[in-house]
Every structure is written in C-alpha cells, then in structure tokens.
C-alpha cells in the first residue's frame, strides 16, 4: 500500500473509531513515515482545539470587556 495522503491522515484523526478506515489505520501502524505523520496530525488537532477554545472564551467575554468602565492609567 502506498503512503497515506494528507486527506487520509486527517480522516484517521477526525474519525478515530470509523471501521471503514481500518485498512488505513493498519497501514499507518506499520509504516514509519505514516505513523509519524499521524502523530503530528493528532498533535495538530490538539493545538487547533486549544485555538478554538481561546476563540470561544474571548467571544464569551467580548461584551463584558466592552461594558467595562474605563480604568484610568
């Protein structure tokens, strides 16, 4: 089997329990290059989740920030 494409790697990360991807998963486990790419992609997914959390938190306090009385410097 040829090395996995970026799209296939992303599918493995976003649909970890999908039985339809079992063949791809087995390949990633046995191929050093693909295994490394998969680990990187999982790590990327964690960072993206943090960025989304940051986005949500900043959005949640946006109104509060706007309503803050001005503090004198």
């Amino acid at each position: 089997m040829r090395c996995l494409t970026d799209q296939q790697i992303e599918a493995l990360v976003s649909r970890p329990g999908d039985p339809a991807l079992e063949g791809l998963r087995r390949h990633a486990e046995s191929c050093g290059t693909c295994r490394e790419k998969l680990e990187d992609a999982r790590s990327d997914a964690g960072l993206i989740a943090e960025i989304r959390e940051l986005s949500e938190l900043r959005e949640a306090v946006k109104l509060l920030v706007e309503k803050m009385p001005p503090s004198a410097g």
Partner: protein
Amino acid sequence: MLSRTTTTLLEGLVDPRNESAWRRFYDRYTPMLLSFAKRVGLNDADAQDVVSDTLVTFLQQYRAGRYDRARGRLKSWLGGIARHKIRRCLSKGRPVSLNASGSGDGPGLPEPAAVCDLDAAFEHEWQLQRLSEALEVLRGESDPTTYQAFDLYALKNWPVDKVASFLELKPNSVYISKSRMLKRLRHILEWLTAEEE
C-alpha cells in the same frame, strides 16, 4: 518579536502620560483576566470589578517600582494580584490574611470550592493568552492568503474544497498552509515560553 513588544509596553507604563501603553496593556490582559475570573465562578459584575482592581493595582505597584522583571515573571506578578483579588471577592464578609509573598491565605479559612482551582485555572488562562499572542505574531508575519487558508480550513472548519475554491488554490496547498502555519505557531509558542522563563 512580541516579547520585545511586552518590554516596550511595560516601559511605556512607567510614564503616566503614556495613555496608549496603558490602553494596549489593558486590551491585552483584560479579556484573559475576565475569562479567568468567570472560570472560577465570579458573576459578571464581580469579575469586572476584580479585573479593573487587578490592573490598577498592577499599574500602581509597577510605577512604585515593585515589579522587577529580572526577579519574577509578569505571569507570576499579575497572577498573584489577580488571585488575591479573586480570593478576597470569593471570601466577602470573611477575613483574609496574606502570607509573606502576598499571595496566600491565612490558615484555618474555609475555602470556597472554586478557590482550590485558582492556580490551575490561571495557568490555563495564561497558556491561552500566550497562544493568543502567538497567533497575533503568526498573523502579522504570514502571507495573508496562507494565513486565511489556515484560518478557514483549520479553525473555521470549512471543507478543503470550499477553501481552495474561495482562495483560488489547489486543495493540496490548503493542507500545506495548515501544516506550515501550525509548525510555525509551535515555534513561536516555544519562543514565547522560553522568553518568559
């Protein structure tokens, strides 16, 4: 890079006439501190009061020469003030004493449940703040199309074909943009973390 900006910002705070330095400091840390205050259970009004009080106290102490960057990180100093203000707010009506470092409670005071998580909550908020600053650096230094491809695909979750079509790129370029941006973001985060130490 950004740490240099932080240094400039802090230097600017010394001068009471430098309103733009105060505004930038306020804009940078207010959302993070508000998020922290809300995370540990303060209502909106108390969170706003605590944050204003924290920033003003920091400024007063900074101008009085009590913050020495060589002896402690901004995180520790600002976090210490914020945690103290929050403890005091959560303990309204109860006496609060400080230990020698100015950041702890006296013995025997029953703690509200949320207070136990103050350190961890602040650490988490600070990490997100660092991420926010790293994203700001990344956006500033990146090719706009590459950053937009990353933003739409990775952060806004647009399908790759839609991003490619919208930005007139090949789908593979969208994947590459995401990968490059995340790699660079990691480097910036590492750099910012090292600068804080």
